[in-house]
Every structure is written in C-alpha cells, then in structure tokens.
C-alpha cells in the first residue's frame, strides 16, 4: 500500500515539474515526464536483464524481479541470480509476480510520438508494438540525413529523426550539455592561456630593454607592465576618440555659423551698395553653351538695393530670343521688406556697363530712364516682378570674345540704379 501512495506522490511531483517547464517552452514539454517513464521505467518495474518494462514478471526466491523470458534464458546457462549471485533452481525458486503485473497493467504512458501529435495512451508494454503502426512515427532516416545534436561540437553525438525529437533531447539533457560545454571551455581556456602567456611573454620581451646579465627573475613583471601599458593606451584611445568627436561637433557648428555669416555679409554688401552693383558672371563659356542648348534658360544676379531702404533689383542674362548670338541683359524689380514705404512705380535712371577687364575705354555702357507706364516698374507681387526692362540685344557674344571682354572665363557687368 505504502508503495502505491509513494508512486502517486512521485507522479504528482513529475507533472508539477513539467508544468514549471511549460512556462518557458511549448506545450509538448509538459508531456515530457510520461515519455521519460517510457524510456526508462521506474526501478521496481524494470527488468535488470533487458532494462525494459517487466514483461510477464516473475519474482525470485532471493527477491528480484525479471521478465519471465529473460530469467529463464539466463538460467539456461547459469544457476544463480544475475543480481546477487544466489543459487536459483529454475523449477522451485521462480514465482509469477502477479502483483507487479497488475501494477504495470494499470500504468498508462503516452506514445513517444506525442511530440509529433499522437495522443494515444498505452500500457508501457504496448508502446513498442504501437510504434510499428503509429501513423505519427517518422521513418528511420539514413544516418547521414539525421539531425545532429546542436552540441555536436562539444561532444554530444546523438542523432535524431526530426526537429521535435531534437528539441526533446535538448530539453532533457541540459545537465549533460552543460558538462560538455564546461569541459570544452576548460580546454579552450587552457589552449588560450598557453597561447596568450607565450605570446604575451614574447611581446613583453619585445618591449623590454635587453635583459641585464643575471637579472632573469623578472619574468612576471614585464607581463604586468605590458598589461598596464596596454590598459593605459586603451584608455587614452578612448579619451582621444571622445575628444575628437566633441571637436567634430564644434567644428560643424562653427562652419554652419560661418556660412550663415557669409550669406549675411553678402546680403549687407548688396544692401549697402547704393544702387551700384558689380556682377561677376563666372563660367561664361559653359553658360553660353547651356543657354544655346536651352534657349529658355536664364541667369539671375543676386538682388541689390538702390539704398539701404530702397528698391531691390536684380539683373537677368539670357540669349536674345530673336538672335542667339546676342546677349540680353535686363533689370527686374524684386520684392523687399520696405516696399510699402517706397513710391511705385519705380522711377529713376538705370545704367548697365559691360566692363572691359583691361581697357576701360572699351566698356559698353547703356543708360535708360524708367518708364512708369511699363509693368516692369510696378511693385512686385511675387519675389520677382515677372516683367523685366532692358536690352534684348545688348551685345554680340562674338564681339565680347573678339574684344577680349572675357577674361578668366568671366564677364563683368556693372549696374547703377538711381531712383529720382
């Protein structure tokens, strides 16, 4: 009786363990305990000869249980108990153990294929015959196609038919795998120590001054020095890297500031030019070529002011729509912050000069008076008044080249705008 209670207690224990595992893994793991029982029966249900579940159990005079077939086969050649070597007479000392037979017949175990979905509950004795017909049984794979344990590198050579089986093995053999790992780790460590100590020693020697005669006892010290040196260097590297990063940030901030200052300065120049502005039209040849390719292309100068609170104007250059050998140069009125305080339409004198870089007498200068009836002088509604005012055929490009107006691939245009 007490035995029976014990076994129930044990079973509870096992299943509660299984539940605990479930929290981490899938539901399959919860069933583990029953499979375990199939794989290795409890000691009192195990035949010491075949190590399987007792099949048709018998009890010997000396108190050991065996499968009927197993013990009789053993007694064919010996006449002693395989466990304690006591003399056994095959006719007198062997009794059927019906108590154990009944206990085993009441055991239920789950098919090992539960991990693949078989829900059969069987007597442990029937598992083998069930496996032959179980539809969830997967076919034995040839050896090289079987899955290897993931710990094969550290010495676990188990092989499996499929993924769930491997999973089960991994769950069940944590302890063993840990042992293998720790052994492998110890080996690696050993190798590394050998390696590092020899190489460290060599390096230490490399850094050291040649040893003085007789002073060979400082083998440890250079090693330590080297370690310290390395640590110091490493710290320094980190410090410098940090510093470099800070400097990078400061630099990028500064260059941003500088570029914003540059743009305000050029704004200032144009604001305080008092209507006299010089436009350096760079990269002249390429621009002419691109304008010839695309007749609609136009180039605008930066805006400039006739006085600090005056009109804002800009110049436009494009090829004459009628004859693309001629440059057109026109004024445009631009929107500025103080437009509301100015008189509209713009009224004044405008002059455009193409400056000869060397001989000022060759300068081409044209002066115009504004014409209030033209839209071009009205207060601009957009950034730029779409209508311009000037000459559509200001100068022949050919002539500009011939007369050497183009120096350094640059055309210099000076404008003067004076409101009246």
């Amino acid at each position, binding site marked *: 009786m007490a035995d029976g209670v014990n076994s129930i207690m044990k079973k509870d224990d096992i299943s509660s363990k299984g539940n605990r595992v479930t929290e981490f893994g899938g539901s399959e793991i919860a069933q583990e305990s029953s499979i375990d029982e199939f794989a290795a029966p409890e000691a009192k249900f195990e035949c010491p000869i*075949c190590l*399987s579940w007792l099949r048709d159990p018998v009890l010997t005079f000396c108190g050991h249980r065996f499968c009927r077939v197993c013990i009789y086969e053993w007694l064919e050649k010996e006449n002693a108990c395989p466990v304690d070597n006591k003399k056994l007479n095959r006719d007198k000392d062997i009794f059927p153990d019906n108590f154990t037979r009944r206990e085993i017949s009441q055991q239920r175990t789950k098919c090992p294929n539960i991990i693949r979905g078989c829900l059969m509950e069987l007597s442990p004795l029937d598992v083998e015959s069930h496996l032959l017909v179980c539809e969830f049984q997967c076919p034995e794979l040839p050896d090289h196609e079987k899955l290897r344990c993931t710990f094969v590198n550290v010495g676990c050579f188990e092989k499996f038919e499929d993924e769930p089986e491997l999973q089960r093995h991994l769950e069940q053999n944590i302890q063993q795998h840990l042992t293998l790992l720790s052994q492998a780790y110890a080996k690696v460590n050993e190798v590394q120590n050998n390696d590092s100590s020899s190489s460290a020693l060599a390096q230490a020697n490399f850094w050291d001054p040649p040893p003085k005669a007789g002073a060979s006892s400082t083998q440890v010290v250079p090693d330590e020095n080297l370690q310290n040196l390395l640590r110091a260097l490493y710290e320094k590297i980190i410090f410098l890297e940090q510093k470099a990063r800070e400097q990078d940030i400061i630099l990028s901030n500064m260059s941003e500031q500088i570029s914003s200052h540059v743009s305000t300065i050029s704004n200032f120049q144009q604001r305080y030019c008092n209507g006299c502005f010089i436009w350096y039209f760079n990269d002249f040849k390429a621009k002419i070529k691109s304008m010839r390719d695309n007749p609609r292309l136009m180039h605008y100068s930066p805006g400039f002011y006739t006085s600090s609170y005056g009109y804002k104007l800009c110049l436009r250059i494009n090829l004459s729509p009628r004859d693309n050998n001629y440059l057109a140069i026109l004024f445009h009125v631009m929107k500025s912050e103080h437009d509301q305080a100015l008189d509209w339409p713009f009224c004044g004198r405008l002059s455009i000069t193409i400056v000869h870089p060397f001989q000022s007498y060759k300068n081409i200068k044209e002066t115009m008076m504004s014409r209030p009836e033209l839209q071009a002088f009205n207060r601009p509604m957009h950034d730029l008044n779409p209508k311009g005012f000037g000459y559509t055929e200001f100068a022949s490009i050919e002539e500009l080249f011939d007369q050497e107006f183009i120096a350094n691939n640059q055309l210099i245009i000076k404008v003067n705008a004076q409101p009246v």
Partner: protein
Amino acid sequence: MANIAAQRIKREFKEVIKSEEVAKCAIKLELVDDNYTELRGEIAGPPDTAYEGGNFLLEIKVPETYPFNPPKVRFMTRIWHPNISSVTGAICLDILKDQWAAAMTLRTVLLSLQALLSAAEPDDPQDAVVARQYKENLEMFKLTARHWTNVYAGGPNVNPECDEKIKRLIDMGIEEHQARVALSSYNWDLERATEQLFS
C-alpha cells in the same frame, strides 16, 4: 544483432552518458558503429596509483547474446598490469568471464576495470612476467607501470633514466617498443635486456 542486445546497449549508453562518473571525466563511452555492436570505452587511471593521470582506451564488443554473455573487452592502450596482457591488452577479470551476471552493465564493467587498476590480482595473472615483477619487486613494478602510463596513456611522470636506456637500445637498432618490453621485463637491467634481445 538480437533485438534485446541492441536495445539494452542503447539504454546503457544513455545511462553511462548521464552518469556522474562521466561528469567527473572518470569514464567515457563512445559508439564506434551505429548498430551498437562495438563501442569505445575510456577510463582514467585511478588517483594514487601508478596509472594516475593516464587515459586508457578500451575496445568493447557486444555479442549477439548480450546480456546473457559478457561483452568482450580489451585494452587498446598499452598497459603494464599483472591482470592485463602487455602484448594484446586482454583482460583477466572474473566478471568478464564466468562471474558475469546479466544485471551488470557497461557502466559497472568500466568501473570494475578502474577498480582493477587500483587493486591488481597477481595470483590470477594474465601477464606472467608483469605478475612476477609485481610480487618480487613492487617498486620496480610501480616504476615500470608509471613509465608505460607516461609513454602510452599520456601520464605526467617522465622517467629520464628509462628513456635513456631505451635510447641506448634504439641506437643498437632495436625497435622502441621492443626495447621497452625487454627492459621492463628485466627490471631495467640494460645488460640482461641486451643479452635477451640479441640471443
């Protein structure tokens, strides 16, 4: 192979793999083929013996009739021991012969062999030469066993004197192992070993 034998070995194999002796690196078991008929065992030389620090490989062959008949076990690593042949590695141990019982397992066999290394039975010898040395000159036996453990099983105890004598014989054109056997058999007496080798 008979079903019962294969199944039992499978289970025993798992039992050994999980055992604490394996965890302590005292014994080891590996499969040689996949039908569980041949295995490779390994036992560590027991501490405080001449075999300490050595690892000894064992060839284990499982008969069809296992477990009703004992497995056939032989040392593959050369060893100097009264109950183990220094030539073939054959073992004289009762449980591997008439005292075998079906309830014994590969694990108990490996542990018994380990026990045999720490407690030789010179009165039931396998190797008569070794047994005689063991009984007549125990110190000489221990020295020789330690030397063999060092040379063949990776033991830590180098014996420069033995190595020197062997080298003398090698210089005379004798093969190393043959030289070691001769010297071991004649209590490392170089003259008598030479005499025997050239007679």
